[in-house]
């Protein structure tokens, strides 16, 4: 019974396989049982962490941002606040509205949680520690995110409430709109790594892709924030708009499941961003000690989760028409331009044998400058239209409008 520290996951699997084969079961059944147990442990561990620990983390960090203390009564430093919240939600009355479609009403929160837990199957925690090494991992992430959109429609429609339906339709419009820049920008780490598999993307990050494609990382971050429904895109659950939210008719643990799904999704975004752009489990010494890679991964994921919360407590909320304008007029063209230019520049760099990182970094810096210039020109044109000034003619007025240089 030797335990290989370089492959802890594999050796545990081997031990359990030998144990079950010794009990007399045949091989495919053993493989199936181990897969189910593994999936259960993975889902249970991450879900428990998110459901209990992240709620406390969210409230504590939010409180510190707002210069107050946060929960500190229940347990040391208020650590058991999440458990207290869960117990409270379970004990609440479970109301199903009159005329609601019972089956659909009950399945919607389950589907919301399912779609988020399913994302963790392709996240590489450590060199050999991954749920399923799909070679289409990036596209799988998009697919499972799309299933979460269904739960919103089901929740909004089955509540037998006009306002819930309207809120659900608005939410789904936002969710499917922001899938487009997310899918486009996910092509950038795919191109840089040469594969859609998450393990291959982590293996290809000798230099973090954040340094090679910062614009793509930013667009992915913004689109993921909108996909979750976090501030600044949280018009779904805003206090001033709560009557138009899709989960208005849910109470008790079903509402709790929607909340857990949202917190968990924010945490998952941290994990996905880490894998795609921050090098996953890579760090000094992680090749020789896989468990050190796990520590790096968890540290980076929690840092990204902190950034998500930071954004939440910094930016004001965006209106639905501003959200749509941001997506269709800014993020989608930007994502298209990034993908096209990254493809061209990568091919050129490979053929001319230039070092990839400085070339891509230069391209991204150039893109940022061009975007800022374009936004300035757009803002100037908008201001001119609002103030009713005439368009500049060719000559000294145009030279002044373009700015210095």
């Amino acid at each position, binding site marked *: 019974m030797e335990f290989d520290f370089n492959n802890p996951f594999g050796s545990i699997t081997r031990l359990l396989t030998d144990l079950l084969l010794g009990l007399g079961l045949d091989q495919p059944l053993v493989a199936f049982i181990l897969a189910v147990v593994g999936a259960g442990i993975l889902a249970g561990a991450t879900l428990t962490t998110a459901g209990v620990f992240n709620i406390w983390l969210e409230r504590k960090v939010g409180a510190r941002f707002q210069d107050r203390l946060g929960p500190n009564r229940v347990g040391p430093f208020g650590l058991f606040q999440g458990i207290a919240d869960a117990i409270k939600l379970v004990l609440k009355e479970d109301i199903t509205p009159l005329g609601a479609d019972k089956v659909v009403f009950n399945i919607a929160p389950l589907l919301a949680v399912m779609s988020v837990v399913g994302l963790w199957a392709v996240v590489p925690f450590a060199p050999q520690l991954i749920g399923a090494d*799909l070679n289409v991992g990036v596209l799988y992430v998009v697919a499972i995110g799309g*299933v979460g959109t269904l739960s919103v429609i089901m929740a909004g429609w089955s509540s037998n409430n006009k306002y819930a339906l309207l809120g659900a339709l608005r939410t789904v419009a936002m969710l*499917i709109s922001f899938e487009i820049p997310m899918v486009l920008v996910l092509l950038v780490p795919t191109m840089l790594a040469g594969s859609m598999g998450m393990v291959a993307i982590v293996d290809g990050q000798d230099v973090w892709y954040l340094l090679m494609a910062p614009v793509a990382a930013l667009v992915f971050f913004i689109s993921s924030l909108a996909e979750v429904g976090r501030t600044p895109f949280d018009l779904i659950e805003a206090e001033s708009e709560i009557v138009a939210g899709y989960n208005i008719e849910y109470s008790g643990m079903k509402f709790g499941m929607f909340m857990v799904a949202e917190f968990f999704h924010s945490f998952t975004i941290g994990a996905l961003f880490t894998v795609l752009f921050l090098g996953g489990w890579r760090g000094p010494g992680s090749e020789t000690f896989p468990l050190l890679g796990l520590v790096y991964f968890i540290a980076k994921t929690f840092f990204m989760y902190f950034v998500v919360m930071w954004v939440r407590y910094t930016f004001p909320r965006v209106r639905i028409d501003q959200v749509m304008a941001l997506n269709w007029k800014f993020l989608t063209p930007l994502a298209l331009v990034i993908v096209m230019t990254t493809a061209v520049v990568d091919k050129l760099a490979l053929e001319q044998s230039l070092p990839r990182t400085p070339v891509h970094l230069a391209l991204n810096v150039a893109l940022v400058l061009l975007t800022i210039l374009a936004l300035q020109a757009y803002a100037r044109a908008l201001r001119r239209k609002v103030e009713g000034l005439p368009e500049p003619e060719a000559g000294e007025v145009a030279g002044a409008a373009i700015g210095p240089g």
Partner: protein
Amino acid sequence: MTAMQAIFLLLGLITFLSAVMVVVSPQLIHAGLWLVLTLAGVAGLFVLLEAPFLAVVQVVIYIGAIAILIIFAIMLTRRMLREDGRQYNNLWAGAVTVSLILFAVLTFLVLQEPSLAAGSEPLQAETSVLLQDLGRSMVDVDRFIIPFEVASILLLAALIGAIYVARPMMASEEGDREE
């Protein structure tokens, strides 16, 4: 009965029963949700056929886009919250007959041909190699670049057409026509 056959029977049964529920459900939104389950079953069958890229594309496009579009259309084209009216038209008896006859003929043909009773050979190449080959074939001048470009032009035309057709009526069009 091997494990693969059991999985195929389970997935096939789920897909077929969901498809039947799609055409039989009295409430249209339920039919839409049963359609989602059917599409998920077909995605599972793709995985069983060792085409994982197509399985994921099926979930992204069909479930994540087309099924949601259909559910939106169902919600936007109802006059009241409850379904009323007859569900089938006058020809439903003939429709059942035609479907059953077609199914019987196809099954008979399939069972007649002895070469169709064979199992599949194991895949020689790995799925990742096949995936790279799929990507390269789409942009290879000697292979499938023309269908690829034509498909993208088709999608662009459909996009523009759908936006134009589904535009809300402008106020100027409802009144006097100036153009």
